């Protein structure tokens, strides 16, 4: 079991109270790594302190035709 899979096993058991086999944990770890990395990079590139999740609805309303 590699470090990422071990971490996923810890999250599953200690934080979420869930049990998965090692193969599935490795798949989940790989999937989460890709998603996390993409969002983390995009956030670092585009987000500032003042960015609010609710701005999305405001942009739609302001840009409405």
């Amino acid at each position, binding site marked *: 079991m590699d470090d990422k899979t071990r971490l*996923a096993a810890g*999250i*599953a058991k200690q934080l*979420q*109270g*869930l049990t*998965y086999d090692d193969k*599935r944990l490795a*798949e*989940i*770890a*790989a*999937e*989460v790594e*890709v*998603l*996390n990395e*993409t*969002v*983390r*990079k*995009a*956030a670092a590139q*585009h*987000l500032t302190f003042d*960015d*609010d*999740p609710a*701005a*999305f*609805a*405001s*942009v*739609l*309303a302001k*840009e*409405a*035709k």
Partner: protein
Amino acid sequence: MINDDLALRDLSEVADAIAAGRITSVQATEACLERIAVWQPRTNAFLRLHKEKALEQARAMDKELAAGQRRGPLHGVPMAHKDMYYRTGEISTGGSAIRRSWVAPVTSTVLQKLDAAGVVELGFLNMAEFAAGPTGHNVHHGHCRNPWDDKRVTGGSSSGSGASVAARMVYGALGSDTGGSIRLPASACGVVGMKATYGRVSRAGAVARSWTLDHVGPLTRTVRDNARMLAVVAGQDPDDSTTSEKPVPDYEALLDGGVQGLKIGFALPDALAPVEPQIGAAVQAAADALGKLGAVIAPAKMPDFTALYRAAEVIVKCEAAAMHRPWMEADAAYANQVRTRMEAGFFIPATQYIDALRLRAHFVREFLDAAMDGVDAVMLPAIPFPVPTIEETDVEASGGPATLSMVARFTGLTRPFNTLGLPALSVPCGFDGNGAPIGLQLIGRPFDEAVLYRIGHAYQGATDHHRKVPT
């Protein structure tokens, strides 16, 4: 024969004929029931058919009309809907085994609106389990099958909505769209599907897949029918705080503006799956047809969809994991591919989920500034490859990475527009080498569904893809 001809007519034509007294709602309902008797065994589009109740409703609608009362623009028109719209006292399975016998305690806002407009309800339609699947596979209720070729998928998750409208079993149907679930079956079945702007249609009383990305909308045979149906179900709803207070336009009255002078961006983006040549050629031909009608076609500057797509994945997995947790902990009866798509949601940090939400405003601004700069709409395919078979997309046994890969290929060109919340319309634009339909996708500015309908209507006036009926 008379009834078959009646079933082949469009929603608006039938609604107007009922209003004018040329036909009755009972006749239209019987015509649909005759089609259903022939097509249900081939497609498995219906989960529950309410034959007697529908006829009773149709008789009541005819009586009201005879007394001079027309409820609205859909008075007496038979429809059926994805089995995720609640009606008080009725079973609502959400396509699942878990809710096979669950009875809804409320009626969804959109069904209330259709009731008020006079719609006759034929029953409820097949769908992917909990709206989680882009193909139309369902291990609990049986796969839905494409009316054009019963070995091929319908697209999902609104599989029964696409199949029933395409096979002329109903005149219109509600679907829902979290990553393409209206546009994919519309494309694969050769019908029109609208995912309106986020906030345009209420989600209250509908099964959620992701509160943030879910969109409710109609599937119909023509753009005109779709415009009429959206106008009925759209609008602000106190039971869904995300709905917009913007007034709902009379979409149908705005259909005939033509496309002269409209500027349309054209793109064949390779987002997670390359656009196959025959699909690209069909969409190019549609662009050429619109150009001949007077639209100005220009290359669209599309942003990279990768981050948009993965942000949507983060959001949907986290929200789905949260809402399904009690059943997942109890090891309830999910299909393998449905369960495995949600599991990562338990492992994604809350900060990443929140950042994905925060990024949406940036993504919308970026798309509007780049792809939609100076254009009225953007056009691209809905599905980037020919409609596959049920067998070659059946990943139930493999799950995990195989499921993710298949989902990504299907939804690569649709899911980004759920993250953006922009209106997106799928319109039939031809047939692939196997004889299955191809869908053209049109994207608009926020709340500009009207321009998409205008373009789609002009296109349907110049082509006959939507007039072809599966046999």
